[in-house]
C-alpha cells in the first residue's frame, strides 16, 4: 500500500531549511584572482645584449577598481562608510603579467580582440595608468600621439595651435615656426581665426591631428583610429603617421587592421584577456590570432 503524502511535511516550516534568496551582490571575492607578492616571478626578462633596448616591460599587472552598480543603499550605505572594504567594489585584472623588451628601430604591433587590454597596455607604457605590480622602464617618456584635451573650443584655431604646441612641450619660438605648417596641413587657412567650436567635427579632428603630428618622438605610441577626416585627408594623415614612425626610434601600433600591422610592423604581440599569448614575427602571430578567432 502506498504511503499517503503527508502535507504537513510540505507546509511545516520547521522541516525545511529557511529560504534564502540568492545574493545579488556578495562580499565573496574569491572568484577574483589575487596576486600575492610571493607569486610574482622576479626578473625573468632576457635581454639581447647585441641590441639597444628602449622599453622594458617587466611582469606588468594592471587592476582597475570599479564600483559595481546596483549596490544596496540605506543601512548598507552607512555600513559602507564605517567599513570601507565592504563597498561594492570589483577589481578587474586588466593585465596579468605582460613582459617584453622592445629594441631600437622596432615597430611593434599590438593585436587582440576588444577588451583584451591593448589600450590599458598602451596607457601603462606611457605612465598614465599606474601598474598594480611590475614596472615599465623606458629610455625617454613614451608619448601618445594626441593633444585634443589641451585645446579650448572657445578659442580660435590659431590660439589653439599655440596652446597645443606649448602643451606638447615646445617653446613659443618653435610654435611660431611650426604655425604655418600646421595650418597648411590641417587645410584650415581660411578658418584659422574662427573659434574652434564653430568647426565641423572633421575640421576639429584635422587640426588636432596636425598639432599632434608636428612633434618628433623617440618612443611613439599610435592608437588605431588616428587617420581622420575625409578620404583625401585620411590618405595624407596615414602618410604623415608613416613619416613620424620612420623618424621615431621605436613605435607601438595598436590596430584591428591586420593589413596595416603586416605592412608596418616587424614584430607583433598578441594579448588575449590580459594575458600575453604570443610575441614574435607578425605573420606567424597574426595567423595564430586569426585561427583562434574562428
Amino acid at each position, binding site marked *: 500500500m502506498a504511503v499517503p503524502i503527508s502535507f504537513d511535511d510540505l507546509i511545516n516550516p520547521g522541516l525545511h531549511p529557511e529560504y534564502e534568496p540568492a545574493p545579488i551582490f556578495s562580499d565573496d571575492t574569491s572568484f577574483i584572482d589575487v596576486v600575492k607578492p610571493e607569486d610574482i616571478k*622576479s*626578473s625573468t*626578462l632576457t*635581454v639581447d645584449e647585441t641590441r*639597444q*633596448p*628602449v*622599453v*622594458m616591460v*617587466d*611582469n606588468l599587472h594592471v587592476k*582597475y*577598481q*570599479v564600483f559595481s552598480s546596483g549596490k544596496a543603499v540605506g543601512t548598507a550605505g552607512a555600513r559602507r562608510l564605517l567599513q570601507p572594504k565592504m563597498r561594492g567594489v570589483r577589481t578587474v585584472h586588466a593585465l596579468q603579467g605582460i613582459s617584453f623588451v622592445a629594441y631600437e628601430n622596432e615597430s611593434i604591433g599590438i593585436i587582440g580582440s576588444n577588451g583584451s587590454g591593448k589600450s590599458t597596455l598602451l*596607457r601603462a*607604457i*606611457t*605612465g*598614465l*595608468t*599606474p601598474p598594480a605590480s611590475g*614596472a*615599465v*622602464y*623606458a*629610455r625617454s*617618456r*613614451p*608619448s*601618445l600621439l*594626441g*593633444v*585634443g*584635451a*589641451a585645446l*579650448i573650443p*572657445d*578659442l580660435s584655431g590659431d*590660439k589653439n595651435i*599655440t*596652446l597645443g604646441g*606649448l*602643451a*606638447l*612641450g615646445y*617653446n*613659443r619660438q618653435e610654435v611660431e615656426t611650426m604655425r604655418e605648417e600646421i595650418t597648411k596641413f590641417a587645410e584650415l587657412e581660411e578658418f584659422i581665426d574662427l573659434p574652434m567650436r564653430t568647426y565641423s567635427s572633421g575640421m576639429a579632428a584635422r587640426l588636432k591631428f596636425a598639432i599632434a603630428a608636428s612633434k618628433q618622438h623617440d618612443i611613439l605610441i599610435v592608437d588605431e583610429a588616428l587617420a581622420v577626416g575625409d578620404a583625401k585627408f585620411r590618405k595624407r594623415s596615414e602618410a604623415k603617421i608613416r613619416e613620424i614612425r620612420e623618424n621615431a626610434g621605436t613605435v607601438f601600433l595598436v590596430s584591428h587592421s591586420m593589413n596595416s600591422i603586416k605592412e608596418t610592423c616587424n614584430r607583433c604581440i598578441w594579448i588575449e584577456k590580459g594575458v600575453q599569448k604570443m610575441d614574435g614575427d607578425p605573420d606567424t602571430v597574426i595567423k595564430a590570432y586569426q585561427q583562434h578567432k574562428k
Partner: protein
Amino acid sequence: MTVAEEAEKFGLHRVGARPSLASYLKQTWERREFIYELAKARVQKQNQQNRLGMIWVVLKPTMNAIMYGVIFGVLQGDSKGPDFPVFVVIGVFLFEFFTSSMNGGAKSITGNQALVQSLSFPRLTLPVAQVTQNLLTLMPMVIVMFIYAMILGTTPKWSWFVIIPLLMIFSVFNMGIALICARITVHIRDFTQILPLITRMLFYTSGVLFSVDRILNHWPWLVQIFDFHPLYQTLQIARAMIMNDATYDPFAWIVVSVWALLALGFGLIYFWKAEELYGRAN
C-alpha cells in the same frame, strides 16, 4: 640581477616615476609659457559668451561689495568705523582672489582629468595656471578698486604702490592653499561639497566686513588671535596703505610672509608627493 638593475644598465628609467623635487620644479619652470598661455586662454574664454564680456570681471565683485556694504553697514550701525565703503571694497575685492584660488585650485586636477590623462607634464602646472589665471583677473579689479577709492574720497598717495609686494606675498600664500586643496580633492572628491562652506566661514571670520578691534573688543584674546590671521592681516596692510587714516602693525608683514612661505612649502611638498597618483584611471 633584477630587471630594475638591468634597465639601469641600459640607461632606462621607470616610466611615471616621481622626479626629485628639484627636477620637478625645473620641469615646471620649463612649462612657464604653457602656464601663462593656459591662464590667459581661460580668462578670455570665461566671459566670452556673456554680453558684457570682460566687464563682468569687475562688475561681479562690485555688486558683491555693494550688497555686503549695505547689509553690514546697516547691521553694524555706529561701530562700523570711518570710510566704511572703501573698507568693504578692499576687503571684498582682495578676498575674491583668495576664494577663487582655493576653489579653482581644488578643481585643478579633477576638473582637467582629460588633460592629465592624455599628456605628460608636471601636474604642478595646473594649480599654478589656476592661480595665475586668478591673478590675471585680479589686475583689472585692483585698478577699479583704486578708482572706487578715489570716487569715495580717498586721496591718492605713493603708498598705493605697496599693494604690489603685498599681492606678491598674497599670491604665494594662495598658491600654497591651492596646491593643498588640489591634492585633497584627488583623494576625497566630497571635499568640493564642503568647500563653499569653508569659503563662506573664512569670509565672515577674516574681517572682510568688520574691523576686529571695534567689534570684538570685549574679547581681547580673540583680537590677539586675529593678530596672526593671514587673511585679516593681508587686508589690514592693504587698507592701511590705501585708506586715508587707517593704521596697521608693521609686524603684520612678518605674519603674512611667514604664512605664505609655510603654505607654499608645505603645499609644494604635499602636492609633489602624490604626483604619481594624479590621473589614475579608476
